[in-house]
């Protein structure tokens, strides 16, 4: 899985490409997000528009990331999950836990007025 990261104001936008599942993909995601959290970043947008499938390990990573980000005053917003990923998130009851947006801009703006000037 490829992960590209860009900074928009106080928000980190991560765009994932490929299957998000146990193994290298989850390890890579854990490493990058732990690094962001370590640097004090806690407002994260995860673009899932090019993720064809997500397993329970990946979902667990997202839940853990959400918990850590919230504890630091931020959060995790999802953007454009594919149909099958949406189906998977629904299957495990997490569509009420994660906010889902149609595009990065709206997800970034949702973090609040403090970010809107740069978003």
């Amino acid at each position, binding site marked *: 899985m490829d992960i590209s990261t860009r900074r928009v104001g106080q928000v980190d936008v991560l765009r994932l490409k490929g*299957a998000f*599942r*146990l*193994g*290298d993909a989850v390890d890579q995601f854990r490493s990058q997000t732990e690094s962001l959290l370590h640097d004090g970043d806690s407002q994260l947008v995860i673009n899932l528009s090019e993720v064809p*499938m997500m*397993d*329970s*390990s990946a*979902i*667990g*990573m997202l*839940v*853990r990331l959400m*918990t850590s980000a919230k504890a630091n005053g931020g959060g995790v917003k999802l953007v454009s999950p594919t149909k*099958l990923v949406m*189906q*998977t998130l629904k*299957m*495990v*009851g*997490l569509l009420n*836990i994660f906010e889902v947006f149609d595009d990065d801009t709206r997800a970034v703006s949702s973090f609040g007025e403090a970010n809107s000037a740069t978003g």
Partner: protein
Amino acid sequence: MDATPKLALDRAQYPNQREFQLAGSTDAIAPVVDQITAFIADASPAHGAEFEVALALQEALANAVVHGCKGDASKTVLVWVGCGTAGVIVIVRDPGPGFNPAGIADPLSDDGLERDHGRGVHMMRQLMDDVHYERNGTELHMRKKFAGGC
């Protein structure tokens, strides 16, 4: 290598069958999931449950590697796949001590939703028509019906 007896699927019910195996390493999972889904697709082109079967396989093999093998690449997971008029059956046997499936917490409870693990079995049960364990929890059996069979 697992010294336990091999498993024989009913040839009449599942005329297309194959055995797979993988090392107890997370890196080994995705290639075997792809091999098995390709085998099923050959036996039953456009069966309409590609997503469900692939994701259930991913979860089954992940559990076998992570819990059954504890990530030890010297250990082996055995997989039997059969296709026939009844659809597809997948049996995954790991070398671990087993577990009690009834002891799995509900991932949809308030506490469960906030946990970072414990969703795999629930997902398999949602994705497949029948999921159960044998051999003290070391052998997973799951079935999916296909319209018209394989």
